[in-house]
């Protein structure tokens, strides 16, 4: 097995763990945690392809990963703000109980 394939398999496993968390947990914050894990797995793929790809001096994968980290930080801030806003109106973060769209 080549090094790149090992990194890709680890990233795929981490992505699957994050997806399972996002799809099965009831707490909205834990769903966001699952989404963060999936984003990080994608970053690992980008960095691994940059390292083992033919033109690392072009910095393409590295830049993609850095911008992805910045966008994920913005996403986390807005997502957690939304969870707090939902908690204010519904008094719970249990996604099975938040089942109405009326404010």
């Amino acid at each position, binding site marked *: 097995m080549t090094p790149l394939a090992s990194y890709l398999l680890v990233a795929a496993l981490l*992505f699957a*763990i994050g997806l399972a968390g996002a799809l099965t947990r009831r707490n909205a914050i*834990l769903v966001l945690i699952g989404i963060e894990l999936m984003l990080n797995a994608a970053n690992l793929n980008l960095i691994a392809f940059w390292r083992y790809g033919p033109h690392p001096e072009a910095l393409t994968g590295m830049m993609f990963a850095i911008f992805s980290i910045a966008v994920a930080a913005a996403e*986390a801030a807005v997502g957690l703000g939304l969870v*707090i806003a939902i908690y204010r109106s519904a008094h719970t973060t249990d996604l099975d109980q938040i089942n109405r769209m009326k404010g």
Partner: protein
Amino acid sequence: MSIAFYPLAVLTLAGGLGAVLLKNTVHCALALSVAFAGLALLFLTLDAQFAGFAQILVYVGAVAILVVFAILLTKGSETPESGIFSHTWFVGLIIAAGVFAVLGWAVLQSVNALPNESAVPAITVHDIGNALVGRYVLPLEIVALLLTAATIGAVIVALHEKEGAK
């Protein structure tokens, strides 16, 4: 591939599993920061020092703290008596397993086609900085705007009080 890969991969995956499976939400946040730190170390084994330290700064330093704040602000640390998993958890598990099967199959089928350059890329932080303010200056400005908008938006969304609500 460096010998550090295997323990770091195990650490990262264990952190991820803990973040998804643990009962107490605060423990989940701690396991999440372990997974983020493990990923940062994996970036270092890939000779991506800048991305590794950015990962530590942004994820371990900021996102994990934000998650802890959100948990404490929403009483999320109380374990609900009805269980921590949604009643459709089995479907989610099947979907995740299917996605992993497809991804793993695709990787294993294309092992010979994957690039395998062994030379360590001679990239310094100086080169990354030059690229950021040179070729990638427009994305950099857009990300700056996005971060400003996201900060203001998050504050407004979280501070919003309904009129008349006491």
